[in-house]
Protein backbone atom coordinates (compact mmCIF):
# COMPACT_ATOMS: atom_id res chain seq x y z
CA UNK A 1 0.00 0.00 0.00
CA UNK A 2 1.66 3.13 -1.18
CA UNK A 3 -0.88 5.51 0.34
CA UNK A 4 -1.18 5.44 4.11
CA UNK A 5 -3.49 7.31 6.47
CA UNK A 6 -4.86 9.56 3.75
CA UNK A 7 -7.11 12.14 5.36
CA UNK A 8 -10.51 12.84 3.85
CA UNK A 9 -13.02 15.46 4.97
CA UNK A 10 -12.93 14.33 8.60
CA UNK A 11 -16.65 15.02 8.86
CA UNK A 12 -18.04 11.53 8.73
CA UNK A 13 -20.13 9.92 6.05
CA UNK A 14 -23.41 11.62 5.21
CA UNK A 15 -26.44 9.47 4.54
CA UNK A 16 -28.11 9.88 1.14
CA UNK A 17 -30.94 11.79 2.82
CA UNK A 18 -28.54 14.37 4.23
CA UNK A 19 -27.02 15.12 0.80
CA UNK A 20 -28.15 17.81 -1.59
CA UNK A 21 -29.49 16.47 -4.91
CA UNK A 22 -26.20 16.86 -6.79
CA UNK A 23 -24.14 15.07 -4.16
CA UNK A 24 -26.78 12.41 -3.78
CA UNK A 25 -26.78 11.75 -7.54
CA UNK A 26 -22.98 11.47 -7.36
CA UNK A 27 -23.08 9.01 -4.46
CA UNK A 28 -25.73 6.97 -6.21
CA UNK A 29 -23.54 6.67 -9.28
CA UNK A 30 -20.71 5.41 -7.08
CA UNK A 31 -23.01 2.98 -5.31
CA UNK A 32 -24.09 1.66 -8.71
CA UNK A 33 -20.44 1.03 -9.66
CA UNK A 34 -20.18 3.87 -12.21
CA UNK A 35 -16.80 5.42 -12.94
CA UNK A 36 -16.38 9.12 -12.22
CA UNK A 37 -14.54 10.91 -15.02
CA UNK A 38 -12.51 14.16 -14.83
CA UNK A 39 -15.22 16.41 -16.31
CA UNK A 40 -17.99 15.03 -14.12
CA UNK A 41 -19.17 16.98 -11.10
CA UNK A 42 -17.67 15.75 -7.85
CA UNK A 43 -17.74 16.95 -4.22
CA UNK A 44 -14.75 19.12 -3.28
CA UNK A 45 -13.81 16.62 -0.55
CA UNK A 46 -13.70 13.73 -3.03
CA UNK A 47 -11.38 15.71 -5.31
CA UNK A 48 -9.13 16.80 -2.45
CA UNK A 49 -8.89 13.33 -0.91
CA UNK A 50 -8.09 11.75 -4.27
CA UNK A 51 -5.36 14.32 -4.95
CA UNK A 52 -3.82 13.45 -1.57
CA UNK A 53 -4.09 9.73 -2.19
CA UNK A 54 -2.94 9.59 -5.82
CA UNK A 55 -0.22 12.17 -5.09
CA UNK A 56 1.09 10.14 -2.17
CA UNK A 57 1.03 7.03 -4.30
CA UNK A 58 2.93 8.78 -7.12
CA UNK A 59 5.52 10.19 -4.70
CA UNK A 60 6.02 6.68 -3.29
CA UNK A 61 6.88 5.40 -6.75
CA UNK A 62 9.40 8.21 -7.22
CA UNK A 63 11.07 7.97 -3.82
CA UNK A 64 10.82 4.18 -4.12
CA UNK A 65 13.37 4.31 -6.93
CA UNK A 66 16.05 5.26 -4.42
CA UNK A 67 16.32 2.17 -2.19
CA UNK A 68 16.44 -0.06 -5.27
CA UNK A 69 18.62 2.32 -7.26
CA UNK A 70 21.02 1.85 -4.34
CA UNK A 71 21.75 -1.64 -5.75
CA UNK A 72 21.59 -1.14 -9.52
CA UNK A 73 25.28 -0.31 -9.67
CA UNK A 74 26.07 -3.38 -7.53
CA UNK A 75 23.76 -5.96 -9.11
CA UNK A 76 25.80 -9.18 -9.17
CA UNK A 77 25.09 -10.40 -12.72
CA UNK A 78 24.23 -8.74 -16.03
CA UNK A 79 20.80 -10.32 -15.99
CA UNK A 80 20.03 -9.15 -12.44
CA UNK A 81 21.20 -5.68 -13.37
CA UNK A 82 18.91 -5.62 -16.42
CA UNK A 83 15.92 -6.89 -14.41
CA UNK A 84 16.45 -4.35 -11.65
CA UNK A 85 16.84 -1.52 -14.16
CA UNK A 86 13.63 -2.56 -15.86
CA UNK A 87 11.87 -2.66 -12.52
CA UNK A 88 13.01 0.77 -11.42
CA UNK A 89 12.10 2.11 -14.85
CA UNK A 90 8.59 0.66 -14.41
CA UNK A 91 8.32 2.48 -11.10
CA UNK A 92 9.22 5.81 -12.68
CA UNK A 93 6.56 4.98 -15.30
CA UNK A 94 4.00 4.30 -12.56
CA UNK A 95 4.86 7.66 -11.04
CA UNK A 96 4.23 9.25 -14.41
CA UNK A 97 0.76 7.70 -14.95
CA UNK A 98 -0.24 8.53 -11.40
CA UNK A 99 0.85 12.16 -11.71
CA UNK A 100 -1.15 12.27 -14.96
CA UNK A 101 -4.17 10.82 -13.15
CA UNK A 102 -3.75 13.46 -10.42
CA UNK A 103 -3.47 16.21 -13.04
CA UNK A 104 -6.97 15.37 -14.29
CA UNK A 105 -8.16 16.60 -10.88
CA UNK A 106 -6.71 20.07 -11.42
CA UNK A 107 -3.27 19.97 -9.80
CA UNK A 108 0.01 20.06 -11.75
CA UNK A 109 2.88 17.63 -11.43
CA UNK A 110 5.18 20.49 -10.48
CA UNK A 111 2.83 21.56 -7.67
CA UNK A 112 2.72 18.01 -6.34
CA UNK A 113 6.52 17.75 -6.59
CA UNK A 114 6.98 20.98 -4.65
CA UNK A 115 4.69 19.63 -1.92
CA UNK A 116 6.75 16.44 -1.69
CA UNK A 117 10.01 18.36 -1.55
CA UNK A 118 8.95 20.77 1.18
CA UNK A 119 7.37 17.99 3.26
CA UNK A 120 3.70 18.97 2.83
CA UNK A 121 2.98 15.65 1.14
CA UNK A 122 4.10 12.20 2.24
CA UNK A 123 5.23 9.01 0.57
CA UNK A 124 4.97 5.45 1.85
CA UNK A 125 6.82 4.87 5.14
CA UNK A 126 8.48 1.74 3.73
CA UNK A 127 10.87 3.69 1.52
CA UNK A 128 12.48 5.28 4.55
CA UNK A 129 14.16 1.97 5.38
CA UNK A 130 17.66 1.17 4.08
CA UNK A 131 18.50 -1.58 1.60
CA UNK A 132 21.66 -3.11 3.06
CA UNK A 133 22.38 -6.31 1.16
CA UNK A 134 21.47 -7.83 -2.20
CA UNK A 135 18.84 -9.96 -0.43
CA UNK A 136 16.97 -6.71 0.25
CA UNK A 137 16.27 -6.51 -3.49
CA UNK A 138 14.54 -9.84 -3.08
CA UNK A 139 12.71 -8.82 0.08
CA UNK A 140 11.51 -5.54 -1.42
CA UNK A 141 10.03 -7.35 -4.42
CA UNK A 142 8.59 -10.21 -2.41
CA UNK A 143 7.27 -8.34 0.64
CA UNK A 144 6.95 -4.67 -0.28
CA UNK A 145 5.56 -5.19 -3.78
CA UNK A 146 3.55 -8.10 -2.41
CA UNK A 147 1.94 -5.82 0.18
CA UNK A 148 1.38 -3.10 -2.42
CA UNK A 149 -0.42 -5.55 -4.72
CA UNK A 150 -2.86 -6.50 -1.95
CA UNK A 151 -4.11 -2.93 -1.97
CA UNK A 152 -3.71 -2.13 -5.64
CA UNK A 153 -5.60 -5.06 -7.11
CA UNK A 154 -8.91 -3.90 -5.56
CA UNK A 155 -8.09 -0.30 -6.54
CA UNK A 156 -8.49 -1.35 -10.17
CA UNK A 157 -12.21 -1.09 -9.33
CA UNK A 158 -11.92 2.30 -7.63
CA UNK A 159 -14.56 4.88 -8.50
CA UNK A 160 -12.29 7.41 -10.21
CA UNK A 161 -11.77 6.35 -13.84
CA UNK A 162 -8.24 7.64 -14.51
CA UNK A 163 -6.98 6.18 -11.20
CA UNK A 164 -8.61 2.80 -11.86
CA UNK A 165 -7.12 2.64 -15.35
CA UNK A 166 -3.63 3.58 -14.15
CA UNK A 167 -3.95 0.84 -11.56
CA UNK A 168 -4.74 -1.83 -14.15
CA UNK A 169 -1.41 -1.26 -15.86
CA UNK A 170 0.48 -0.85 -12.60
CA UNK A 171 -0.86 -4.15 -11.23
CA UNK A 172 0.38 -6.11 -14.23
CA UNK A 173 3.88 -4.80 -13.72
CA UNK A 174 3.80 -5.13 -9.94
CA UNK A 175 3.02 -8.82 -10.09
CA UNK A 176 6.06 -9.29 -12.32
CA UNK A 177 8.11 -7.37 -9.74
CA UNK A 178 6.88 -9.55 -6.94
CA UNK A 179 7.79 -12.70 -8.85
CA UNK A 180 11.30 -11.48 -9.58
CA UNK A 181 11.73 -10.54 -5.91
CA UNK A 182 10.70 -14.03 -4.87
CA UNK A 183 13.09 -15.45 -7.45
CA UNK A 184 15.98 -13.53 -5.84
CA UNK A 185 14.89 -14.81 -2.42
CA UNK A 186 14.86 -18.40 -3.71
CA UNK A 187 18.39 -18.09 -5.04
CA UNK A 188 19.57 -16.54 -1.78
CA UNK A 189 17.72 -18.95 0.51
CA UNK A 190 19.12 -21.92 -1.41
CA UNK A 191 22.58 -20.44 -1.82
CA UNK A 192 25.73 -20.34 0.30
CA UNK A 193 25.67 -19.91 4.08
CA UNK A 194 26.34 -16.20 3.65
CA UNK A 195 23.47 -15.85 1.16
CA UNK A 196 21.05 -17.63 3.51
CA UNK A 197 22.07 -15.28 6.31
CA UNK A 198 21.44 -12.30 4.05
CA UNK A 199 18.00 -13.66 3.11
CA UNK A 200 16.99 -14.20 6.74
CA UNK A 201 18.36 -10.81 7.75
CA UNK A 202 16.38 -9.10 4.99
CA UNK A 203 13.19 -10.83 6.11
CA UNK A 204 13.90 -9.86 9.73
CA UNK A 205 14.29 -6.20 8.81
CA UNK A 206 11.45 -5.90 6.28
CA UNK A 207 8.73 -7.96 7.98
CA UNK A 208 7.53 -5.33 10.46
CA UNK A 209 7.79 -2.38 8.05
CA UNK A 210 5.85 -4.43 5.44
CA UNK A 211 2.99 -5.02 7.89
CA UNK A 212 3.02 -1.29 8.64
CA UNK A 213 2.45 -0.52 4.98
CA UNK A 214 -1.26 -1.28 5.44
CA UNK A 215 -1.53 1.43 8.09
CA UNK A 216 -2.89 1.09 11.63
CA UNK A 217 -6.23 -0.55 12.24
CA UNK A 218 -9.01 1.60 10.74
CA UNK A 219 -11.09 1.22 13.89
CA UNK A 220 -13.68 3.95 13.68
CA UNK A 221 -11.58 6.26 11.49
CA UNK A 222 -13.91 8.79 9.84
CA UNK A 223 -11.36 9.21 7.04
CA UNK A 224 -11.42 5.51 6.15
CA UNK A 225 -15.20 5.37 6.33
CA UNK A 226 -15.58 8.31 3.94
CA UNK A 227 -12.96 6.96 1.53
CA UNK A 228 -14.70 3.59 1.52
CA UNK A 229 -18.07 5.20 0.85
CA UNK A 230 -16.49 6.96 -2.12
CA UNK A 231 -14.81 3.71 -3.22
CA UNK A 232 -11.37 5.20 -3.25
CA UNK A 233 -10.42 2.82 -0.47
CA UNK A 234 -11.76 -0.63 -1.11
CA UNK A 235 -10.79 -2.67 1.97
CA UNK A 236 -9.99 -2.18 5.63
CA UNK A 237 -6.35 -2.10 6.69
CA UNK A 238 -6.59 -5.12 9.01
CA UNK A 239 -8.36 -7.16 6.36
CA UNK A 240 -5.56 -6.54 3.83
CA UNK A 241 -2.86 -7.15 6.44
CA UNK A 242 -4.42 -10.52 7.25
CA UNK A 243 -4.53 -11.45 3.55
CA UNK A 244 -0.88 -10.49 3.23
CA UNK A 245 0.21 -12.60 6.20
CA UNK A 246 -1.86 -15.54 5.00
CA UNK A 247 -0.22 -15.35 1.59
CA UNK A 248 3.31 -14.74 2.83
CA UNK A 249 3.70 -17.19 5.73
CA UNK A 250 3.62 -20.34 3.53
CA UNK A 251 6.01 -18.68 1.07
CA UNK A 252 8.50 -18.04 3.88
CA UNK A 253 8.17 -21.66 4.92
CA UNK A 254 8.80 -22.76 1.34
CA UNK A 255 11.95 -20.64 1.32
CA UNK A 256 13.08 -22.19 4.60
CA UNK A 257 13.12 -18.76 6.26
CA UNK A 258 11.66 -17.83 9.62
CA UNK A 259 9.24 -14.94 9.96
CA UNK A 260 10.44 -12.93 12.97
CA UNK A 261 7.24 -13.41 14.98
CA UNK A 262 7.13 -16.14 17.61
CA UNK A 263 3.37 -15.80 17.90
CA UNK A 264 2.75 -16.54 14.23
CA UNK A 265 0.45 -19.54 14.14
CA UNK A 266 -2.24 -20.95 11.89
CA UNK A 267 -5.68 -20.49 13.44
CA UNK A 268 -8.10 -23.11 12.11
CA UNK A 269 -11.09 -21.36 13.53
CA UNK A 270 -10.62 -18.11 11.66
CA UNK A 271 -8.98 -19.79 8.67
CA UNK A 272 -5.98 -17.50 8.84
CA UNK A 273 -2.78 -16.89 10.75
CA UNK A 274 -2.56 -15.23 14.14
CA UNK A 275 0.33 -12.79 14.18
CA UNK A 276 1.83 -9.99 16.25
CA UNK A 277 1.20 -6.34 15.40
CA UNK A 278 4.26 -4.44 14.19
CA UNK A 279 5.78 -1.73 16.35
CA UNK A 280 3.31 1.11 15.83
CA UNK A 281 5.46 3.56 17.82
CA UNK A 282 8.14 3.06 15.20
CA UNK A 283 5.56 3.59 12.46
CA UNK A 284 4.48 6.94 13.90
CA UNK A 285 8.12 7.97 14.33
CA UNK A 286 8.74 7.18 10.66
CA UNK A 287 5.62 9.09 9.67
CA UNK A 288 6.92 12.11 11.55
CA UNK A 289 10.01 12.05 9.35
CA UNK A 290 12.26 10.00 11.62
CA UNK A 291 12.68 6.99 9.32
CA UNK A 292 16.24 5.59 9.23
CA UNK A 293 16.86 6.93 5.70
CA UNK A 294 14.20 9.66 5.63
CA UNK A 295 16.58 12.62 5.67
CA UNK A 296 18.72 11.03 2.95
CA UNK A 297 15.72 10.29 0.74
CA UNK A 298 14.49 13.87 0.91
CA UNK A 299 17.99 15.24 0.46
CA UNK A 300 18.47 13.08 -2.66
CA UNK A 301 15.13 14.17 -4.17
CA UNK A 302 15.76 17.83 -3.38
CA UNK A 303 19.26 17.69 -4.80
CA UNK A 304 18.02 16.01 -7.99
CA UNK A 305 15.35 18.70 -8.41
CA UNK A 306 17.71 21.60 -7.68
CA UNK A 307 20.56 20.22 -9.81
CA UNK A 308 18.13 19.62 -12.65
CA UNK A 309 16.74 23.17 -12.68
CA UNK A 310 19.15 24.38 -15.37
CA UNK A 311 18.22 21.41 -17.56
CA UNK A 312 14.47 22.04 -17.27
CA UNK A 313 15.00 25.76 -17.87
CA UNK A 314 17.25 25.08 -20.86
CA UNK A 315 14.72 22.69 -22.42
CA UNK A 316 11.90 25.20 -21.94
CA UNK A 317 13.94 28.07 -23.35
CA UNK A 318 14.77 26.04 -26.45
CA UNK A 319 11.13 25.02 -26.91
CA UNK A 320 10.08 28.68 -26.64
CA UNK A 321 12.67 29.69 -29.25
CA UNK A 322 11.46 26.98 -31.61
CA UNK A 323 7.87 28.06 -31.17
CA UNK A 324 8.76 31.71 -31.79
CA UNK A 325 10.75 30.80 -34.92
CA UNK A 326 7.84 28.75 -36.23
CA UNK A 327 5.41 31.63 -35.65
CA UNK A 328 7.75 34.09 -37.38
CA UNK A 329 7.99 31.77 -40.40
CA UNK A 330 4.21 31.54 -40.76
Amino acid at each position, binding site marked *: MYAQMVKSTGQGVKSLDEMDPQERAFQERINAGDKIEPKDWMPAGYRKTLIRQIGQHAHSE*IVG*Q*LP*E*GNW*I*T*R*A*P*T*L*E*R*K*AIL*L*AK*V*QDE*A*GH*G*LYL*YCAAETLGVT*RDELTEMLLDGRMKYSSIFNYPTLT*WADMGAVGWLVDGAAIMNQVPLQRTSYGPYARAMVRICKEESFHQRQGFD*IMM*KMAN*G*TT*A*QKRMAQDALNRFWGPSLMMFGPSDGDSVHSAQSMAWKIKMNGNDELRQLFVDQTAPQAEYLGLTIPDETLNWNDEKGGYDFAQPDWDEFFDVLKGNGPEAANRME*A*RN*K*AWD*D*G*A*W*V*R*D*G*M*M*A*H*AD*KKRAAKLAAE
Partner: protein
Amino acid sequence: MSNLFEFACRMGDNSLVLGHRVSEWCGVAPVLEEDIALANIALDLIGQTQLWLGLAAEIEGSDRDADALAFRRDVWDFRNLLLVEQPNRDFGHTMMRQFLFDAWHFEMLGALKGSDHTQISAIAEKSLKEVTYHLERSTDTVIALGDGTEESHNRMQNALDRLWPYVGEMFLNDDCDHIDTSSLRPAFDARLADVLGQATLVQPDSTFTHKGGKTGARHTEALGHMLAVMQSLPRAYPDAKW
Protein backbone atom coordinates in the same frame (compact mmCIF):
# COMPACT_ATOMS: atom_id res chain seq x y z
CA MET B 1 44.13 -14.01 -27.27
CA SER B 2 42.41 -13.85 -30.66
CA ASN B 3 41.68 -10.60 -32.41
CA LEU B 4 38.02 -11.49 -32.58
CA PHE B 5 37.85 -12.07 -28.81
CA GLU B 6 39.54 -8.72 -28.27
CA PHE B 7 37.08 -7.02 -30.61
CA ALA B 8 33.99 -8.55 -28.94
CA CYS B 9 35.38 -7.36 -25.58
CA ARG B 10 35.84 -3.86 -26.96
CA MET B 11 32.21 -3.70 -28.05
CA GLY B 12 30.90 -5.37 -24.90
CA ASP B 13 33.00 -3.29 -22.53
CA ASN B 14 31.85 -0.07 -24.20
CA SER B 15 28.23 -0.94 -23.63
CA LEU B 16 28.86 -2.32 -20.13
CA VAL B 17 30.82 0.68 -18.89
CA LEU B 18 28.51 3.27 -20.47
CA GLY B 19 25.41 1.33 -19.39
CA HIS B 20 26.75 1.35 -15.85
CA ARG B 21 27.48 5.07 -15.93
CA VAL B 22 24.02 5.86 -17.24
CA SER B 23 22.45 3.61 -14.59
CA GLU B 24 24.10 5.77 -11.92
CA TRP B 25 21.39 8.36 -12.72
CA CYS B 26 18.65 6.10 -11.44
CA GLY B 27 16.10 8.09 -9.44
CA VAL B 28 17.94 11.42 -9.54
CA ALA B 29 17.47 12.71 -13.12
CA PRO B 30 16.38 16.33 -13.72
CA VAL B 31 12.84 15.34 -14.71
CA LEU B 32 10.81 12.13 -14.54
CA GLU B 33 10.81 11.55 -18.30
CA GLU B 34 14.63 11.58 -18.18
CA ASP B 35 14.65 9.00 -15.38
CA ILE B 36 12.63 6.73 -17.62
CA ALA B 37 14.68 7.42 -20.76
CA LEU B 38 18.05 7.01 -19.04
CA ALA B 39 16.98 3.72 -17.47
CA ASN B 40 15.85 2.60 -20.90
CA ILE B 41 19.18 3.45 -22.49
CA ALA B 42 21.11 1.75 -19.69
CA LEU B 43 18.91 -1.30 -20.11
CA ASP B 44 19.57 -1.47 -23.86
CA LEU B 45 23.30 -1.15 -23.28
CA ILE B 46 23.36 -3.89 -20.64
CA GLY B 47 21.41 -6.10 -23.06
CA GLN B 48 23.99 -5.43 -25.76
CA THR B 49 26.72 -6.26 -23.25
CA GLN B 50 25.20 -9.69 -22.70
CA LEU B 51 25.37 -10.33 -26.45
CA TRP B 52 28.90 -9.03 -27.06
CA LEU B 53 30.49 -10.56 -23.97
CA GLY B 54 28.54 -13.74 -24.61
CA LEU B 55 30.13 -13.86 -28.04
CA ALA B 56 33.57 -13.11 -26.55
CA ALA B 57 33.16 -15.99 -24.09
CA GLU B 58 32.11 -18.31 -26.88
CA ILE B 59 35.14 -17.32 -28.99
CA GLU B 60 37.45 -17.80 -26.03
CA GLY B 61 36.00 -21.25 -25.40
CA SER B 62 37.19 -21.47 -21.80
CA ASP B 63 34.95 -21.73 -18.71
CA ARG B 64 34.34 -17.97 -18.55
CA ASP B 65 30.87 -16.69 -19.44
CA ALA B 66 29.67 -13.11 -20.04
CA ASP B 67 29.25 -12.53 -16.28
CA ALA B 68 32.77 -13.76 -15.54
CA LEU B 69 34.10 -11.33 -18.14
CA ALA B 70 32.08 -8.45 -16.72
CA PHE B 71 32.62 -9.10 -13.03
CA ARG B 72 35.97 -10.88 -12.71
CA ARG B 73 38.35 -8.90 -14.90
CA ASP B 74 40.33 -5.99 -13.49
CA VAL B 75 40.98 -2.58 -15.02
CA TRP B 76 43.86 -3.59 -17.30
CA ASP B 77 41.77 -6.27 -18.97
CA PHE B 78 38.96 -3.88 -19.87
CA ARG B 79 38.86 -2.77 -23.51
CA ASN B 80 36.36 0.07 -23.50
CA LEU B 81 36.99 3.53 -24.93
CA LEU B 82 38.20 6.12 -22.43
CA LEU B 83 35.22 8.30 -23.36
CA VAL B 84 32.63 5.96 -21.84
CA GLU B 85 34.38 5.56 -18.48
CA GLN B 86 34.39 9.31 -17.86
CA PRO B 87 32.32 10.15 -14.78
CA ASN B 88 28.81 11.58 -15.15
CA ARG B 89 29.70 14.94 -13.63
CA ASP B 90 26.48 16.83 -14.46
CA PHE B 91 23.60 16.05 -16.81
CA GLY B 92 25.30 18.08 -19.54
CA HIS B 93 28.44 15.95 -19.45
CA THR B 94 26.35 12.80 -19.36
CA MET B 95 24.34 13.77 -22.44
CA MET B 96 27.34 15.13 -24.38
CA ARG B 97 29.24 11.89 -23.68
CA GLN B 98 26.17 9.98 -24.80
CA PHE B 99 25.85 11.97 -28.03
CA LEU B 100 29.53 11.62 -28.96
CA PHE B 101 29.42 7.89 -28.30
CA ASP B 102 26.03 7.35 -29.98
CA ALA B 103 27.19 9.18 -33.13
CA TRP B 104 30.18 6.81 -33.34
CA HIS B 105 28.24 3.74 -32.23
CA PHE B 106 25.60 4.35 -34.91
CA GLU B 107 28.19 4.40 -37.71
CA MET B 108 30.08 1.47 -36.19
CA LEU B 109 27.04 -0.78 -35.93
CA GLY B 110 25.93 0.25 -39.41
CA ALA B 111 29.28 -0.97 -40.76
CA LEU B 112 29.25 -4.15 -38.63
CA LYS B 113 25.80 -5.06 -39.89
CA GLY B 114 27.46 -5.86 -43.21
CA SER B 115 30.02 -8.20 -41.61
CA ASP B 116 30.23 -11.71 -43.01
CA HIS B 117 30.56 -13.01 -39.44
CA THR B 118 26.92 -13.96 -38.84
CA GLN B 119 26.89 -13.41 -35.07
CA ILE B 120 28.57 -10.01 -35.31
CA SER B 121 26.20 -8.99 -38.05
CA ALA B 122 23.16 -10.17 -36.07
CA ILE B 123 24.20 -8.40 -32.85
CA ALA B 124 24.93 -5.22 -34.82
CA GLU B 125 21.56 -5.32 -36.53
CA LYS B 126 19.67 -5.74 -33.27
CA SER B 127 21.72 -3.10 -31.46
CA LEU B 128 21.44 -0.61 -34.30
CA LYS B 129 17.67 -0.38 -33.84
CA GLU B 130 18.21 0.65 -30.21
CA VAL B 131 21.14 2.94 -30.92
CA THR B 132 19.22 4.78 -33.65
CA TYR B 133 16.82 5.84 -30.91
CA HIS B 134 19.64 6.65 -28.46
CA LEU B 135 21.23 8.92 -31.06
CA GLU B 136 17.96 10.65 -31.84
CA ARG B 137 17.44 11.44 -28.17
CA SER B 138 20.98 12.53 -27.36
CA THR B 139 21.03 14.70 -30.51
CA ASP B 140 17.80 16.44 -29.49
CA THR B 141 19.06 16.97 -25.95
CA VAL B 142 22.42 18.40 -27.03
CA ILE B 143 20.66 20.79 -29.43
CA ALA B 144 18.05 21.85 -26.87
CA LEU B 145 20.50 22.49 -24.05
CA GLY B 146 23.14 24.06 -26.32
CA ASP B 147 20.49 26.40 -27.68
CA GLY B 148 18.63 26.82 -24.35
CA THR B 149 19.57 29.36 -21.69
CA GLU B 150 22.97 30.99 -21.26
CA GLU B 151 23.69 28.60 -18.38
CA SER B 152 22.69 25.47 -20.28
CA HIS B 153 24.72 26.64 -23.29
CA ASN B 154 27.82 27.22 -21.18
CA ARG B 155 27.48 23.89 -19.45
CA MET B 156 27.19 22.05 -22.77
CA GLN B 157 30.17 23.89 -24.26
CA ASN B 158 32.15 23.07 -21.15
CA ALA B 159 31.18 19.40 -21.45
CA LEU B 160 32.21 19.32 -25.11
CA ASP B 161 35.57 20.95 -24.36
CA ARG B 162 36.20 18.56 -21.48
CA LEU B 163 35.28 15.41 -23.42
CA TRP B 164 36.81 16.39 -26.76
CA PRO B 165 40.24 14.83 -26.12
CA TYR B 166 38.52 11.42 -25.82
CA VAL B 167 36.81 11.59 -29.23
CA GLY B 168 39.83 10.67 -31.37
CA GLU B 169 40.32 7.26 -29.75
CA MET B 170 37.08 6.04 -31.31
CA PHE B 171 38.67 6.27 -34.75
CA LEU B 172 42.10 4.82 -33.99
CA ASN B 173 42.40 1.53 -35.78
CA ASP B 174 44.41 -1.64 -35.21
CA ASP B 175 44.36 -5.31 -36.25
CA CYS B 176 41.84 -6.25 -33.58
CA ASP B 177 39.15 -4.00 -35.03
CA HIS B 178 36.77 -6.02 -37.13
CA ILE B 179 36.36 -3.09 -39.54
CA ASP B 180 38.47 -0.04 -40.32
CA THR B 181 37.25 2.36 -37.62
CA SER B 182 39.07 5.29 -39.18
CA SER B 183 36.67 5.06 -42.12
CA LEU B 184 33.79 6.10 -39.84
CA ARG B 185 35.23 9.54 -39.20
CA PRO B 186 33.86 11.53 -42.18
CA ALA B 187 30.23 10.58 -41.46
CA PHE B 188 30.78 11.28 -37.75
CA ASP B 189 32.34 14.68 -38.49
CA ALA B 190 29.53 15.67 -40.81
CA ARG B 191 26.90 14.83 -38.20
CA LEU B 192 28.88 16.57 -35.48
CA ALA B 193 29.15 19.78 -37.51
CA ASP B 194 25.42 19.75 -38.19
CA VAL B 195 24.36 19.08 -34.59
CA LEU B 196 26.85 21.47 -32.99
CA GLY B 197 25.70 24.14 -35.47
CA GLN B 198 22.09 23.72 -34.39
CA ALA B 199 23.18 23.63 -30.76
CA THR B 200 25.21 26.87 -31.24
CA LEU B 201 28.24 25.05 -29.81
CA VAL B 202 31.80 25.40 -31.06
CA GLN B 203 33.88 22.36 -31.95
CA PRO B 204 37.29 22.61 -30.24
CA ASP B 205 40.10 22.91 -32.79
CA SER B 206 42.57 20.65 -30.97
CA THR B 207 43.37 17.34 -32.62
CA PHE B 208 45.00 15.89 -29.51
CA THR B 209 43.59 12.59 -28.38
CA HIS B 210 44.02 10.49 -25.25
CA LYS B 211 44.37 6.80 -25.97
CA GLY B 212 44.84 3.50 -24.17
CA GLY B 213 41.25 2.47 -23.38
CA LYS B 214 40.47 0.12 -26.24
CA THR B 215 43.93 -1.45 -26.06
CA GLY B 216 43.85 -1.58 -22.26
CA ALA B 217 47.28 0.08 -22.14
CA ARG B 218 46.21 2.98 -19.91
CA HIS B 219 42.70 3.59 -18.59
CA THR B 220 41.79 6.65 -16.53
CA GLU B 221 41.53 6.44 -12.74
CA ALA B 222 37.75 6.62 -12.95
CA LEU B 223 37.39 3.04 -14.24
CA GLY B 224 38.88 1.37 -11.16
CA HIS B 225 36.38 3.05 -8.87
CA MET B 226 33.54 2.05 -11.12
CA LEU B 227 34.64 -1.59 -11.14
CA ALA B 228 35.15 -1.59 -7.38
CA VAL B 229 31.45 -0.85 -7.00
CA MET B 230 30.19 -2.92 -9.90
CA GLN B 231 32.14 -6.06 -9.05
CA SER B 232 31.85 -5.88 -5.28
CA LEU B 233 29.40 -8.76 -4.73
CA PRO B 234 30.93 -11.39 -7.04
CA ARG B 235 34.36 -10.47 -5.61
CA ALA B 236 33.24 -10.66 -1.97
CA TYR B 237 31.27 -13.89 -2.41
CA PRO B 238 33.11 -15.79 -5.16
CA ASP B 239 31.23 -19.06 -4.53
CA ALA B 240 27.76 -17.58 -4.63
CA LYS B 241 25.27 -17.94 -7.48
CA TRP B 242 22.90 -15.03 -7.81
